[in-house]
């Protein structure tokens, strides 16, 4: 067990954990965040994605000690202080881009990452970036539409 400082959604938290604990478990259990989800624990599905800087990254195998001091954002952190949704989040509601919605966190994180890193990305590129994100319900087309229309600055 070690004391580790992590910065999530603009706030610094001091936690005591086994330094090898994957970030996902810390976010869900210590910080009680619901955004990042456990899907595979193997970096194969994208359900657990968070933003580190502007990069969407799976958190399920990432040791918490490795992200100490980095800027981590989760789904919750995309909502502005006054409750307004991020434009990518809003687009998911507008397009009703969910069935069970379990994949939504990863899809939105990836969408935000694209909008910050390459807002000019075309459909082909967006699909490429979403390669890791699985959706078992088959909501892909709506999700793609939501991301496409919301990434532009």
């Amino acid at each position: 067990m070690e004391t580790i400082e992590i910065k999530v959604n603009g706030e610094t938290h001091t936690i005591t954990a086994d330094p090898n604990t994957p970030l996902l478990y810390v976010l869900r259990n210590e910080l009680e965040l619901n955004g990042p989800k456990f899907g595979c624990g193997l970096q194969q599905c994208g359900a657990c994605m968070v933003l580190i800087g502007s990069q969407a990254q799976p958190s399920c195998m990432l040791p918490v000690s490795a992200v100490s001091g980095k800027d981590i954002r989760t789904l919750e952190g995309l909502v502005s202080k006054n409750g307004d949704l991020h434009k990518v989040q809003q687009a998911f509601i507008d397009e009703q881009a969910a069935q069970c919605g379990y994949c939504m966190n990863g899809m939105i994180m990836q969408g935000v990452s694209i909008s910050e890193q390459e807002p000019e990305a075309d459909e082909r590129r967006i699909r490429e970036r979403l390669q890791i994100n699985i959706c078992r319900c088959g909501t892909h087309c709506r999700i793609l539409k939501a991301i496409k229309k919301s990434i532009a600055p």
Partner: protein
Amino acid sequence: MKYSNKPGRRNFMKQLGSVSIGFSLFGSLSCLTENEKELAMVFEHTPKNERIDSWLQVLEDGSIEIYTGKMELGQGISIAIMQVAAEELNIPVSRIAIHLAETGITPDEGITAGSRSIETSAMSVRQAAACAREILMEIAGTSMKLPVNELVLEDGQIRGREEVKNFHELLQGNQIERAAYEPKEYYGKTQRNIVGKPVKRPDLEKMVRGETFYIHDMRFPEMVHARVVRPPVYGAVLQSIRQEELDLEPGFLKLVRSGSFLGIITEGEYQAVQLQQKMTDRCKWYVTKELPQYENLTNYIKSLPADTQTDVENGNLAEAQQNAQITHKAVYSKPWIMHGSNGPSCAIALFDKEKLHIWCHSQGVYPLRETIAKMLNIPVTDIHIKGVPGSGCYGHNPADDVAAEAAIMAMEFPGRHIRLQWMRQEEHAWEPYGTAMLMEHKATLDSTGKITSWNYELWSDTHSTRPANGDPANLLPGRYLDKGFEAPQGGGWRGGTIRNAEPLYSLDNFKLTSHSFSGPLRVSALRSLGAYANIYGIECFMNELAAKAKADPFEFRIRHLNDERAINCLKELQRMTTAVNPESGEGFGIGFARYKNSASYCAVAALVGFSENKPAIKHMWGVIEAGECINSDGLKNQTEGGMIQSASWTLMEQVTFDREHITSTDWYSYPMLRYPEIPKIEVTVIDRPDLPPSGAGESAQGPTAAAVTNALFKATGSRIRDLPLSK
């Protein structure tokens, strides 16, 4: 007229605090101690399905709470039910809350399956709401001393000449305890202001913000975590465990062992994950049965003992076959495929004050309660199960298993909430799959290209081993407990096997024979059950027959149909795709069916080409006609999703195993369609408000499989009949 003068269920539940109201009240159960009398009601009461207040209650602010015995699985049933209620009561959807399946609280509606929730739950709510409206209008008329036709119902209020009263005021805090009856009018049929519209789902708002919504998100004070240590293969007996220094393991609380069932409980979740791994290495198992190995699925299935039955026999097959001009035969097969829920199954259980509470994403809380009672040998009236949404399940996934496992562990570790979540490898390797099937077709044509006979023989394991009949062996842990409930023998219920096995086409001479075998893998209901494979085979065979008859596949189908709705559906698909012009190397194909031959009609077309030497679906089109459409966007969403899911099954999905156990245990060894391969999709909804609504969540599975396969044949000129298409 009779009203309740007792406080409504809502009031009583409010006192209960945390147990059951909506998603917002996930608080600890410990506060229940002061309310033991009320809590007892949860255990002893089952709302009666015929009563209005079992489905609908008026809250203090005049808004409405609807109770459904069904579960939200991502299929959008909540919004559909809210819409039908809102329409009848002329109240905005935003003033309706919905309470999902919970024992003692909602009506017992069995299992959320078979695309039946619209036909059953939504229609019960519609009736209760229409009755409630009529009753409220009468009450208002009496209290305002006006004839009902001078009253205006608007926005959840009833307006007379001088007064306006909301529903709560009219009922003076009571509920309508009467039985539902046949109302004079359904606004859903006559006005249709809310029904049929693409009303947005309120639950998406919660998902998008990361609010507490899924079972996975529930947290209770002092909650602990659990994992199960799995055997190496289905047939295994736990011989020994090295338990030394377990107490020194971080966070270790308890090892729960009963027979060959082994669970661990720890303070932290990651501690449980690590200990699960460690304990797996420390267990010695005796393998009682290995899995079979074979070269060829068709031969293997045919080698299994089977229970054979003639299900349908019309006309005179032999005579028709003798007089035939053209005879055609084809054999198709599909492998075992998995539900593969995106989020592994999860449940929370608490045993406290001699009562067992379970939170889980089961599709049937009441049947599960009965089965868990038998497994644990405790009375049903000691168990309370609340349904909380999980990841999409697409049928009978391990939702019930995980609930049963959490319950076993809770009984051994009372007083604290125990959260159990399966790991990805467990979900992949231990879920009940959709069974492999074999489909053998033989048909004859006359010189005009009319089908004169059709013989269909099919081989299948069962499509349901749900814990619906109270048999604990249908819960995975049931097999490993001390008591040793025998694993189900397979075969069994045939209804799923022959679902859509009879073509909708008019056939004078038709015979259906089913061979029910007991296969090596654990199987149960997967979205559409046998219909996926049956429709796949029939609709591929229809294209093969059309080719023999030198007919266009659309025209060939229509010539064999006398069902107007079916013909309309196909013609709409034809209209949508007239401009499609496959390039060289591409092919176009269609598939069609009416789900269960009694529910929704669905026609699908696909344009398939190649990319990197693998079949690639470029574009798909779908037409869905589900009678009266309740939510047009929901219907589209379900159809699009079904098409993509089925395309993935058809193209690439198959469970693999060796002697030891399942070998497809993650998303690499069990690949699915990913973004770069997802086709464009267009779906048209045909709305028939003049007809009753029918469920549509499973309608696209079969037609899509055939459309894709038929298109691939067009693209390549050679027909693959054994799924998946790209092995």
